[in-house]
């Protein structure tokens, strides 16, 4: 049994493999002491190896994991597990967004990550949904229900929040504002993808890939086919577990 564990900024994800078979995936919130949360997740399991990835990887390595790989490598391996032909991968998590280009053999040849601020990530969407009084699960479908574009220019969470307040007070419907916020995120992601090598398809991983409005707008604006794994938020953990198997 090999385990991959992804200690992300918002959630902990775990993937358990027995040989080639993905036995199960688990997810909990990161909380204040992520490595202890992670140890809770592992309780009762007797893995051969545990490989950690994500922001908490080094802390996990100090405490229980046998090795670490970066999120870049983990998502590359994970994306290939779900889509063996994947060449370009977009991962949008709680705090980071990244684009990764692979060669035919699946090795990373190029990657990009957002800078230090969380603009254009899951955290941005989460805060914006809250500012409109919706849950994250409601937020994407709501954006899809609008076809009207209200302008949101700012990607900074603080400034975007003031823009939202201003739009609300001009009587702009919530669905239009939601769509505008999603578009703002997508335009930033499109910018990142366009800086990389061209590809006709894109594998989209990370928790934000669960958002139907982001997926649909991304497909529309990029003009490429976007593939989302069945367990997008677990791609990193799956990749880490697959790496464990090669050791």
């Amino acid at each position, binding site marked *: 049994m090999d385990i991959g564990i992804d200690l992300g900024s918002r959630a902990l994800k775990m993937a358990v493999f027995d040989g080639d078979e993905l036995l199960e995936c688990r997810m909990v919130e990161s909380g204040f002491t992520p490595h202890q949360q992670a140890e809770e997740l592992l309780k009762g399991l007797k893995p051969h190896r545990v490989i950690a990835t994500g*922001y908490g990887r080094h802390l996990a390595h100090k405490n229980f994991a046998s090795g670490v*790989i*970066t*999120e*870049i*490598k983990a998502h590359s391996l994970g994306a290939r597990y779900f889509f063996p032909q994947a060449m370009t991968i977009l991962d949008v998590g709680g705090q*980071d967004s990244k684009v990764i280009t692979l060669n035919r053999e699946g*090795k*990373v*040849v190029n*990657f990009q*990550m*957002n*800078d*230090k601020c969380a603009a254009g990530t899951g955290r941005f969407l989460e805060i914006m949904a809250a500012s409109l009084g919706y849950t994250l699960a409601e937020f994407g479908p709501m954006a899809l229900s609008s076809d009207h574009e209200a302008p949101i220019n700012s990607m900074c969470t603080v400034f975007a929040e003031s823009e939202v307040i201003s739009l609300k007070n001009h009587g702009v419907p919530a669905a239009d504002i939601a769509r505008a916020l999603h578009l703002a995120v997508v335009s930033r992601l499109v910018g990142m993808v366009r800086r990389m090598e061209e590809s006709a398809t894109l594998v989209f991983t990370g928790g934000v890939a669960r958002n139907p409005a982001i997926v649909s707008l991304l497909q529309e604006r990029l003009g490429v086919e976007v593939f989302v794994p069945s367990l997008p938020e677990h791609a990193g953990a799956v990749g880490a577990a697959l790496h464990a198997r090669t050791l």
Partner: protein
Amino acid sequence: MQDFEVKAYPEMWHELNMDVERFDKARQMLGGAYTKIFLSQANRPQKMAYFDEMISEIFGGRVKELMQAKKEGRPVVGTFCVYIPEEIVVAANGICVGLCGGSPGSIPDAEKILPRNICPMVKSAFGFKAGRICPYFQVVDFVYGETTCDAKKKTWEILDRLVPTYVMEIPQMKKERDRTLWLEEVKDFKAKIEAVSGKTISSEQLAEAIKILNGKRQALQRLTKLRAANPAPISGKDALLIEQIAFYDEPVRFAAKVNELCDELDARAAKGEGILPKSALRVMVSGTPMALPNWKIHNLVESAGAVIVNEESCIGTRYFKDLITEGSLDMEKQLAALTDRYMRIDCSCFTPNDERVTQVLKEYKDSAAQGIIHYSLQFCHTYNIEEIKIREACQREGIPYLSIESDYSPDDVGQLQTRIEAFLEQVEG
């Protein structure tokens, strides 16, 4: 290792009109960071002891020497750039000293006056003077400024209110008329130094100064060559530290100490000994200068288990790769030779500047590196844009490449660590 501290000289600092209380905190922080980043390394060459001592005495011993020199009427010039004809200063028995400009601590002082969205090095330097927290700034006769970028060029006008700032015009192209301009500027600078020291520079003095600085540059070239060995005999952090100290130490003593270290490294290389095992990934850094105590990238890369084997940077090979032809005692010929040497500097302020791309590829091969990290300070437009050409060249040559843009603040360290580790995974294949 626990005994290390950057030594305090509060009385001397008072004499220099510094903000002593605040500066003392910075001193303690520097000592702590140095212990953690440098003294914790295993297998360090013994001859690093001298450079440890230079850091320990950075706010004391060396400053005393400068104060003494001033009492003797020797000119002391503060600088920020490799584009200063140091030979002229040394010929007048003067001292060139690199000023503080590598720390986030002084940036709030600068932002009281300067715009926020300019280069952190310029802001940091300005803040060190504005806050009176750099002894070197307090001791200099004047600051030497140049026109290598817009942020510096316009900041000199404001800095001049706090400390006399003399500005030389650096050409932006390399045509014959640009060389003529630079030669004229060199002559003006010589007149300026002669005015400050009250003595005329003789051709014998200039010949001696050229020899001294060539000696210092050759010592640094030797160190760079030794780093090509696998395993690398010295860490990138230590080599960068030496390149940083090169800007404020006494040149003859410094060259001798670097050569002593190189003798030790020679012996290490002969025995196949290194700072890390042979399998450690070898990375070269290219781009903007890392002023002391900016050890951010080196610390991240080496903490991830790789070793940095070259700095293609102003605080790095750009400072010492070119020498001045020696042998002439004709002042006109000497100044022409000096001008030629400085015109070979491949600073990104020049356009076009394709020789830098060639140089980066050459140093990559010479240093036996396995990947290049391009480092650019935030808002350093010329290096940031020139990065495109370096990246294209690396793609063409199949060189693993990562570009980092960062400032002095620690808040992007998490992301940078991930990016650097992912890059190392990529190099490893």
